[in-house]
């Protein structure tokens, strides 16, 4: 009979029973201890060990955002970010590895390569000598940069060498394919990440984008733990900035002004080209423009955009504002008769002209056509001080331009109560007031655009990472003078070219209006007085319906100032602009207002 009756307590010896009970008791105690410890460690977690372990495992990884590009009006890339590599080495690994294996694709076997051979191969690819490479690969540093800024195809070949300890780190590098063309406008980066000048600086937030983040858990063996935390915030790439600049015209203008400055031995020069109908800036050319790929090559003072930052006394170009104000206020008209003595004295202040003359019978057109200070003071004195100030303000003098470049000049326009005896008249011909080239161009743009001033635009729009284009809104426009006044002023400007002294601004086939300006340049060493001249010329074409304004400025050209003419430079830049935009030749009769009263 196979049976196994259970043991009953009654048959056990008391000693055995006691031993069993003690054993059970010990086991239960141990169980309790273990259970308690488990509860404490797992449940209460005193000592924060779970958290500490999680903290050790969690690895945040920054996902870099790609910096946006800067484009010109036609989509030409002015600035973009590309991948480059830094070749880094773990010196401890490389020094201790005498030979390593490399897969030979031709024989499909593993070759055994010595360390020296590897070093020689690397030196050949990098183009440096073997001793230098050996020095950088030997040592006890765990991280040492062997080469920087390596292009991807070279990095590919270096990686295929399989040199132990060698690794390629991807970095982002900003390249500027057009170099110094629009160099100052585009700007450059500091430390490869933050904009330091130009558009790179002012639009840094938009270009930069937002970094992403990835948090995951990593084990002690360096492998990611698949089922643990894995949070991903994707990076948002920066938006592209589209400018209104036309790179070809910009190059042409930069080359033209650089040639002119070299020829005249001037300090600096600028050319500004603007589209009068929209206010879009087509070119902002400055001499000695920096190449953003290597901005250190030019002086610090050359790294900005003088077209908007340099404020100077404009000189005779301001006479256009005086004439416009007088015509708008009904105090004069283009054929108004003036008897102009060789020198004109008013309120104890004497004014003379740049050229000697007897008493002349001139029209208002003739006063501007020959750029006569005396005549201008005569016309301007018909306006009250307040009126002169108001019109200067209306035309944007003393009002900062806001096109998105750093350090744009506001210019200096003192209030009328601060004007002294002489300044109240000199402001009429552009001395005793200072403004930047762009401010002058803006004033002329109102005349070209039937009296409506449009704020100049440099940034056309933004293109988001998804490709959506968002135009930058145009700022408010304002009516500065009436349409009729603007037309009369345009006639005066055109007559200056056809009948007046600015005949070298004429372009075959097109009607052109222009005004020259020669002003004394204040000393820059802090002492009062003047030193040298600023020669400028501003013109618009075609006069049947003006579309473009070009201003050429030359600071402190050497030699006789009255022999200096910006006419040829203006002509070449304006013809290039007219040709590029396929502007039809002018029709209609050019204005030929008489300069003298018969």
């Amino acid at each position, binding site marked *: *009979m196979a049976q196994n009756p259970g043991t009953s307590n009654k048959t056990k010896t008391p000693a055995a029973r006691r031993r069993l009970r003690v054993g059970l008791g010990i086991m239960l105690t141990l169980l309790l201890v273990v259970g308690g410890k488990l509860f404490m460690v797992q449940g209460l977690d005193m000592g924060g060990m779970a958290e500490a372990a999680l903290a050790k495992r969690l690895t945040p990884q920054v996902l870099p955002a790609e910096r946006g590009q800067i484009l010109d009006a036609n989509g030409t890339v002015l600035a973009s970010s*590309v991948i480059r590599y830094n070749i880094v080495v773990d010196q401890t690994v490389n020094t201790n590895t005498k030979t390593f294996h490399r897969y030979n694709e031709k024989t499909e076997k593993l070759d055994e390569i010595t360390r020296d051979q590897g070093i020689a191969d690397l030196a050949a690819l990098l183009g440096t000598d073997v001793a230098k490479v050996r020095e950088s690969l030997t040592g006890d540093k765990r991280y040492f940069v062997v080469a920087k800024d390596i292009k991807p195809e070279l990095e590919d070949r270096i990686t295929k060498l399989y040199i132990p300890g060698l690794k390629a780190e991807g970095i982002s590098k900003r390249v500027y394919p*057009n170099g110094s063309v629009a160099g100052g406008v585009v700007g450059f980066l500091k430390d490869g990440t933050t904009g330091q000048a130009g558009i790179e600086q002012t639009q840094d937030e938009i270009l930069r984008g937002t970094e992403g983040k990835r948090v995951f858990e990593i084990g002690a063996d360096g492998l990611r733990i698949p089922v643990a935390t894995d949070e991903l915030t994707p990076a948002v790439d920066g938006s592209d900035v589209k400018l209104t600049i036309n790179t070809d015209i910009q190059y042409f203008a930069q080359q033209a002004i650089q040639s002119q400055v070299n020829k005249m031995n001037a300090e600096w020069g600028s050319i500004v080209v603007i589209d009068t109908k929209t206010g879009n800036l087509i070119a902002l050319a400055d001499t000695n423009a920096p190449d953003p790929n290597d901005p250190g090559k030019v002086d610090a003072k050359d790294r900005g955009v003088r077209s908007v930052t340099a404020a100077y006394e404009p000189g005779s170009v301001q006479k256009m504002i005086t004439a416009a104000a007088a015509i708008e206020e009904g105090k004069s008209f283009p054929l108004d008769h003036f008897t102009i003595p060789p020198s004109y004295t008013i309120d104890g202040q004497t004014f003379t002209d740049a050229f000697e003359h007897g008493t002349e019978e001139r029209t208002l057109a003739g006063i501007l056509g020959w750029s006569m200070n005396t005549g201008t003071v005569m016309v301007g004195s018909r306006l009250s001080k307040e009126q002169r100030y108001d019109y200067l303000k209306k035309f944007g003098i003393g009002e900062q331009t806001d096109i998105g470049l750093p350090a744009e000049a506001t210019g200096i326009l003192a209030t009328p109560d601060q004007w002294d005896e002489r300044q109240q008249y000199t402001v009429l011909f552009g001395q005793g007031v200072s403004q930047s080239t762009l401010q002058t161009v803006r004033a002329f743009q109102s005349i070209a655009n039937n009296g409506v001033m449009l704020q100049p635009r440099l940034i056309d729009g933004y293109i988001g990472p998804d490709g959506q284009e968002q135009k930058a809104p145009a700022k408010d426009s304002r009516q500065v003078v009436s349409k009729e006044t603007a037309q009369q002023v345009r006639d005066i400007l055109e007559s200056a070219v056809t009948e007046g002294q600015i005949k070298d601004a004429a372009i075959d086939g097109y009607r052109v209006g222009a005004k020259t300006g020669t002003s004394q340049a204040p000393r820059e060493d802090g002492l009062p007085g003047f030193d040298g001249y600023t020669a400028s010329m501003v013109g618009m074409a075609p006069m049947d319906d003006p579309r473009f304004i070009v201003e050429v400025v030359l600071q402190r050209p050497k030699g006789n100032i009255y022999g200096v003419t910006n006419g040829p430079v203006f002509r070449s830049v304006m013809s290039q602009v007219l040709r590029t935009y396929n502007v*039809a030749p002018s029709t209609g009769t050019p204005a030929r207002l008489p300069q003298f009263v018969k």
Partner: protein
Amino acid sequence: MSNAAARTLPSVVGNTARALPAPAGKPDVARRPRTPLSVVRSAPGRRRTPFVVLCFVAMAAALLTVLVLNISVSTAQYQLVQLKAQAATLNKENQDLTQKKQNFEAPQNLAAKATELGMVPSTVKGQIDLNTMTVTGKATPAVKGENPGAVLAPPAVGGVLDVVPSVTTKDPLENLKPVTPAAPEASATQATPPAAPASPAATPPVDLHGGSVPAPQQKTPGQ
């Protein structure tokens, strides 16, 4: 005796048997004759092997499923890694080529190349209006050898050509022909200096009228 019997009838055999309590006044009524002893074959125990087999099969199936899942995920992962690497390589190549193209397009480099070809900028241009068939302006021929004016430095983009390559009369692609296929052909092309404008064919030398831009090889279309 079977277990069932052991449960119902307390054992009285053997020295470990319990002592029977004296049944109080209960006489043995019908004392049955003892059945002859014989080996009782115990009832066939429940067969456990199917269960064990089932367990093993289930375990194997589970392991296989996990294995297959892991393999498929890994394969997909390998593919993903390979495709990502391909995308990265193509992206780098694209950037490289784009940069080269942009470098050639840079205005300074174009101007330098034009100067090398002997071109000069035109001065006064005329206009032809196709709508009205009128010619305005007086176009003047460009004057050679005039002062070209300031030369803007080419963009200093690292690693890209910043010296415009010298112009040869050969199509640039021709210069990239591999040397190995036809060794005599290669040595022949290397022997002729690039300056010789006369083409290998038997066309007579073209009068270039003092220019330096070579005449096109193709005289008539389709030839």
